[in-house]
């Protein structure tokens, strides 16, 4: 994805635009230390390192420790073994993993196709009022999850009477209902990403298809869709990472216990409960770190599957 840097922009172009691998000219004068490089890069790198990279690594480290007599002691992979096999913990863990995958599947099969449909309609060159549609359709995405959760809780509450069955109160429907609420909110993101790539398709390609007698439908599937396949992959992986990391909506609507009877418990709420404790459950920073590490590994697995499974195949298919 990282394209080759353009040949020497700026002053260095004359002196040192050759890549680092090329042998340096023997007579090349030793460059003075470039203070401005440090001034430009160091602040961003420092904040990023101290407040993101270091805590992340520290969390991963903590997942290998456990308190023994009040002292954090190295225990190897014990926490992970507990998490996936201990009677109490593993039920909650596998339940959360499964629910998380369901949560993702709803987004993948409902949100992204509808987002693509809306984007395709918006990108049609003859459409009038496009920017108004674009703004209106994106509005739910700008709201906070707290607001979205309550708006839908009110609307589907039997008190107002729009829906008779308590969708959020039954273990069979709670998770999917929550996922659909989240789809409603975030549909703007795949829509805008698909829209951006659809309007960048050169007109000549579409004209050529039209001249060849293709209708709008077959033009879309035979010309446009293959061209946006890489974006389909990126949108999928963004959806996956965002969903594996979800928390706010379920916490807002169902609380940390993610009821009824943990039917809507996902990794994020499990992480929160494990870390801080809830009701009878004691909070534990090392077990919390263990859950976070498992989330990290699941996200990593998804991202790697995308890069090695999907993106490579797409590229060879396109060439």
């Amino acid at each position, binding site marked *: 994805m*990282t394209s080759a*840097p353009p040949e020497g*922009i700026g002053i*260095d*172009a004359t002196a*040192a635009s050759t890549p*680092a691998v090329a042998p340096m000219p023997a007579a090349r004068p030793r460059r003075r230390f470039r203070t401005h*490089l440090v*001034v*430009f*890069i160091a602040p*961003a790198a420092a904040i990023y390192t*101290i*407040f*993101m*990279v*270091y*805590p*992340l690594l*520290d*969390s991963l480290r903590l997942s290998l420790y456990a308190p023994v007599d009040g002292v954090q002691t190295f225990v190897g992979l014990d926490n992970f073994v507990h998490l996936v096999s201990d009677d109490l913990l593993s039920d909650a863990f596998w339940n959360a993993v499964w629910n998380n995958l369901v949560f993702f599947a709803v987004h993948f099969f409902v949100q992204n196709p509808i987002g693509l*449909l*809306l984007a395709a309609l918006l990108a049609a060159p*003859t*459409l*009038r009022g*496009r*920017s108004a*549609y*674009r703004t*209106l359709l*994106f*509005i*739910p*995405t*700008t*709201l*906070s999850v707290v*607001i979205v959760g309550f*708006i*839908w809780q009110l609307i589907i509450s039997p008190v107002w009477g729009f829906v008779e069955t308590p969708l959020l109160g039954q273990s069979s429907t709670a998770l999917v209902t929550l996922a659909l609420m989240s789809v*409603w909110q975030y549909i703007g993101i795949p829509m*805008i990403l698909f829209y*951006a790539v659809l309007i960048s398709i050169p*007109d000549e390609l579409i004209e050529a298809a*039209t*001249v060849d007698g293709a209708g*709008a439908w077959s033009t879309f599937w035979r010309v446009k869709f293959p061209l946006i396949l890489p974006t389909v992959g990126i949108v999928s992986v963004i959806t996956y*990472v965002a969903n594996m*990391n979800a*928390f*706010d909506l379920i916490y*807002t609507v169902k609380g940390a216990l993610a009821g009824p009877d943990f039917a809507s418990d996902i990794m994020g709420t499990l992480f929160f409960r494990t*870390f801080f404790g809830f009701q009878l459950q004691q909070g534990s*920073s090392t077990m*919390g*770190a263990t859950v*976070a590490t498992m*989330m990290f590994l699941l*996200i990593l697995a998804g991202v790697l599957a995308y890069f090695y499974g999907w993106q490579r195949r797409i590229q060879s298919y396109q060439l």
Partner: protein
Amino acid sequence: MSAVSTPPRGVARPPRAGRTWRARAGVAVPHLILIAYVVVACGPIALIVMNAFKSRQAIFEEPFAFPTPSTVDLGGFETVFTRARFELYFLNSFIVTVGTVVLVLLLGSMAAFALAEYRFAGITVVSLYLAVGIMIPIRLGTVGILDLMVRLNLVNSLAGLVLVYTAMGLPLAVFVLTAFFKQVPGDLKDAARIDGASEYRVYALALPLARPGLAAIGVYTMLPIWNDLWFPLILTPGEGVRTVTLGTQLFLGQFVSDWNAVLAVLTLAALPMLALFIIFSRQFVRGLTSGAIK
């Protein structure tokens, strides 16, 4: 881009456009689908805002009616302002969001400028190191972040939130802005250098030319920060440093059965971002579509 509503793609339309049934459907159907979805997207929000201004009785009896003089009731808003310190929460959210956006844009553009402009050993490593953060959610480091904040004495301080959000926003900002700085013509910068400008001066000259990227990153950074619940819940639960999102969440928990108050607080919490988004939506979309994410 959007101004070109009548494209030169005459071939697409039959010679007698609009006459046939098919052509008419071709124009109408997309509008029908889009309007239907606009109702799905905006209807619930309109319903909440509308009912926030009505009396308790009218909320339940005529949920779809606009507030009329006989049904208007601002009691909900009164409860919100007397029972919770929402003006304080708004100020806190404002400080955190503006502080973060300024830091992300300043530090991000400096680093991006250096990565786009200079060649140096290790540039690939630095770029990759910063880019890794785009894909890894910072939330996974929460255990370590809370630990660090306790040690730095930054728990229950807005500065702590700003630092975490800045770390969260920087990777994407650097990545996107690097692409924008690479498009700035080199002649301009070289001319400035020949005139004796320092590298810092050259950066200041190039900065305005990356404006579309800065606008997109600004909006893109702002939204998730204003709306975040996770870090305020963990790092700043104290009354004096609460953000709007956390304040709303706690208020809703307390007043769950007072529908007037609930609807009023939802409306209040939604309006700032809604207004801001509608004002900046053009920049946002243009930033995203002009190569920000490709």
